[in-house]
């Protein structure tokens, strides 16, 4: 069975208004720009987006933001897009700020079926307000809940038709953990290969996590994002 789909809207058909969507990438690097573009074309609203950033101004998730489709953003560094601050000031978006390690760990925990965990990160800071504090073996920790979403939109380098994935350099970032933490996982890739072409020792995301594969048509280059 091949998980490859030609049509982007077909691949995104599981997405509905009000859902929580994980979106891979560190800024635009490793972001699923083709799938985000598909989301921009699609008639949905009230999305909760979990992503390290909300893109850059007008680019990537930044374009989705400007369509007012994002009800809430959960991330670690919204500063990379000044529009986020403007919308927040106007009360047009809710934001939940998490330390980057907590964001990534909560997503991993969600994918691993854990309810939550205790971390030292953030203890005694404003980001710990309202969070349970607990001392374990003399060290203070705060409780963080896991994150599990309806959909994950991620980017990889190569996929075989079964859905095994490998990544490319620092475009890996949040993508492999997001692949584990959503009911529907949709990946865009530069290249689709036959099963057997990826070395089983080198597969980063086993196919068990992947529902749908599409070909990347928006590519990040030195000159910015270009359409393929």
């Amino acid at each position, binding site marked *: 069975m091949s998980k490859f789909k030609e049509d982007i809207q077909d691949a995104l058909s599981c997405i509905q208004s009000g859902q929580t969507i994980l979106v891979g990438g560190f800024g635009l690097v490793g972001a699923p720009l083709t799938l985000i573009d598909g989301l921009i074309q699609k008639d949905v609203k009230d999305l909760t987006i979990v992503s390290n950033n909300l893109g850059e101004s007008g680019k990537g998730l930044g374009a989705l933001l400007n369509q007012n489709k994002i009800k809430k953003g959960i991330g670690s560094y919204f500063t990379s897009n000044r529009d986020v601050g403007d919308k927040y000031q106007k009360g047009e978006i809710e934001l939940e700020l998490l330390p980057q390690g907590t964001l*990534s760990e909560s997503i991993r925990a969600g994918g691993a079926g854990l309810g939550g965990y205790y971390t030292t990160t953030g203890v005694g800071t404003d980001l710990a307000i309202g969070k349970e504090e607990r001392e374990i073996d003399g060290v203070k920790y705060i409780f963080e809940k896991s994150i599990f979403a309806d959909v994950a939109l991620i980017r990889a380098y190569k996929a075989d038709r079964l859905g095994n994935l490998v990544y490319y350099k620092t475009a890996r970032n949040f993508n492999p953990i997001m692949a584990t933490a959503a009911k529907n996982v949709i990946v865009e890739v530069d290249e689709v290969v036959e099963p057997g072409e990826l070395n089983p020792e080198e597969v980063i995301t086993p196919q068990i996590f992947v529902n749908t594969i599409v070909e990347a048509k928006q590519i990040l280059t030195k000159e910015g994002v270009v359409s393929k």
Partner: protein
Amino acid sequence: MSLIKDKNEMKHLIAKRVAKELKGSLTVNLGIGIPTLVPEYLESDDIQLHTENGLLGVTDVAEEDIDPNLVNAGKLPVGESIGASYFNSSDSFAMIRGGHVDVAILGALQVDQTGIIANWAVPGKNIMGVGGAMDLLVGAKKVIVTMSHTSKDGSSKILKKCTYPITSTRSVDMIITELAVFKVVDKQLQLVELMPGSTLKEVEEKTEANFTYVEE
């Protein structure tokens, strides 16, 4: 009076001084800003640079070799060293929080006289970004803060108490500015070195925090 002519020169002066602290075989995470200039001045061949977006073994990259998918935490292009490795964000922060990174070099908005820093938010402005700062503060074995000694308006950034939200309850180990090098020992600031052209009098005038002067 410090002899520094411009901001760029100040940044390089600080970065050069930081590099002197990095001896032997160490894994070092570099924050955004001044810390990214440190590699230019490293003397040890055995320093491995970690960037929290998923690479151990960061190097400089030549203009013609820039790869848009190979960047550091500041989203600037970098290269990969011989013996480098890539990993995902949760594995990267497991390294940091788990105490596997030897040194973190960070910028700060304020430091207090116990070595507590504030570097992620300014009251009255939207709290918009924290990134990996809190993780590095709790996880790195040693934290060195780099910053200009004073704000644009001339006020001290080394305070009795931070007025901005703190990044962690953990004190940093060292503060390096264009005027002075402080160590934090038992939650107290020790001025251990004056930077070139700086005087004790100038440091005293421009530092709100209490500190002792320890000639090393």
